[in-house]
């Protein structure tokens, strides 16, 4: 069955037609909702791209700064591909797919763009730091989880407010939230482009993901600079392919950035 759909996806693409009627460079409808778990999480957001849905939450935890960076705080990114969201996902520890999303897309995008000033997350040099725990969960997988996860993590960070910190006791008072938010210096937007035959598509739906040969997730910041790249898929890409895919992701990154303003 998969092959029949896959063949159909490919044969339609010869005529520049996608299974759901979209243009090759067209996203499905995107919605961003803030504060979806505002009682529990210091920041939270839901992102839907078509039928794909993910939720992200931010918790502030205390930690001891790393010895090599005693004056900095840190971020910890975790992505869970829930078996609730797709018959293809299983229970158990994070698989390679979710590790790739967490590390190669969300974490790298945030770190390499210096989106957060890690120095501001240090409470006391060498002794106490904030650890910004970013957890993203898939709720429904209808394709392109990568971009949805990236967007949801950014939206939840934008939504986040510091909890109150009792310095004397060294405790976080989670019941009391301050008005101070996390300052995002950059909005690093990841955009995934897939290659099927000689065509390049944005926002792949599930059937298109199955038919893809290679993908490139390119993360860009506001001025168009690239801050992270991750290639996926089994087939190679030519340098011309890469150039085209990067150009497309810069353009789409601009479009999606507007959704977070």
């Amino acid at each position: 069955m998969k092959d029949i759909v896959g063949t159909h996806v490919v044969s339609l693409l010869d005529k520049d037609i996608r299974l759901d009627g979209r243009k090759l460079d067209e996203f499905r409808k995107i919605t961003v909702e803030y504060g979806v778990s505002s009682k529990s999480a210091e920041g939270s957001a839901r992102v839907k791209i078509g039928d794909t849905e993910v939720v992200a939450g931010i918790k502030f935890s205390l930690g001891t700064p790393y010895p090599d960076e005693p004056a900095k705080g840190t971020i910890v990114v975790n992505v869970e591909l829930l078996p609730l969201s797709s018959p293809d996902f299983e229970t158990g520890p994070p698989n390679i797919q979710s590790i790739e999303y967490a590390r190669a897309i969300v974490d790298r995008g945030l770190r390499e763009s210096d989106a957060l000033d890690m120095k501001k997350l240090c409470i006391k040099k060498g002794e106490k730091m904030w650890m910004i725990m970013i957890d993203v969960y898939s709720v429904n997988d209808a394709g392109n989880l990568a971009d949805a996860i990236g967007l949801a993590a950014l939206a939840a960070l934008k939504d986040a407010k510091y909890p109150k910190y009792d310095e004397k006791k060294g405790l976080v008072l989670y019941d009391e939230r301050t008005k101070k938010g996390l300052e995002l210096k950059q909005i690093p937007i990841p955009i995934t482009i897939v290659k099927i035959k000689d065509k390049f598509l944005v926002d792949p739906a599930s059937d298109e993901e199955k038919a893809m040969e290679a993908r490139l997730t390119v993360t860009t910041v506001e001025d168009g600079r690239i801050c992270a790249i991750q290639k996926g898929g089994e087939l190679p890409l030519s340098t011309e392919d890469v150039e085209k895919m990067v150009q497309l992701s810069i353009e789409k990154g601009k479009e999606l950035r507007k959704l977070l303003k």
Partner: protein
Amino acid sequence: MAYSKRISGRKFDELREIKAEVGVIPRADGSARFQIGKTIALAAVYGPKALFPKFLQKSDTGTLRCYYNMMSFSGSGERVRPGPSRRSKEISYITQNALLPVLDLKEYPSAVVEIYVELLQTDAGTRCAGITAAAMALADAGFPMRDLVSAISVGFVEGKLLVDIDNEEEHYEKGNTDIPIAMMPRTGEITLLQMDGFASKEELKEALKAAKAACMQINKAQIEALKARYKK
């Protein structure tokens, strides 16, 4: 001083606001979202499908598996570590037992039906919200069911009976009694009953009566949500 008023200002037998919806996860065979106050549960059903490893298969009947999980940012206070815990395993197990009586798994020999419950936000009553959502998801998936299952947590604070306990009440400084109950609303049969804290047998009787009335209200919301899907 007696506990004369609830912290939230609710009446003693008043449920928090309920929102229920089915079909919220298109990839699943059946799904539901159930919100009571600030507690939000999502449930998805997959199956019946082949059960692996094969030695777990039962040739005369199907198997039900439930997984309860709190998203790591959904707790009050510290982040919850991802992955199964003793608590989540126990709740998964009691969720399974709360739902088994309404299903006829003999229809699906050797197969498995899996239910995933995820908590997006919590304010106590999560196992009950999870069971309520899971029952709706099963109905949404089209399983023949003897009845829905509706669940609520009732309890006592300073001798006063409270329906639908929230987190503040659960952590009331002078202690509380917490009784999560799941029922098949049509017959009033109980499929989940747990209790922590003290109660006399008269109090327990009173609690069961109040839980039944509350479950009827929850059942109404479940049925409305299921009907709403097919009105569109």
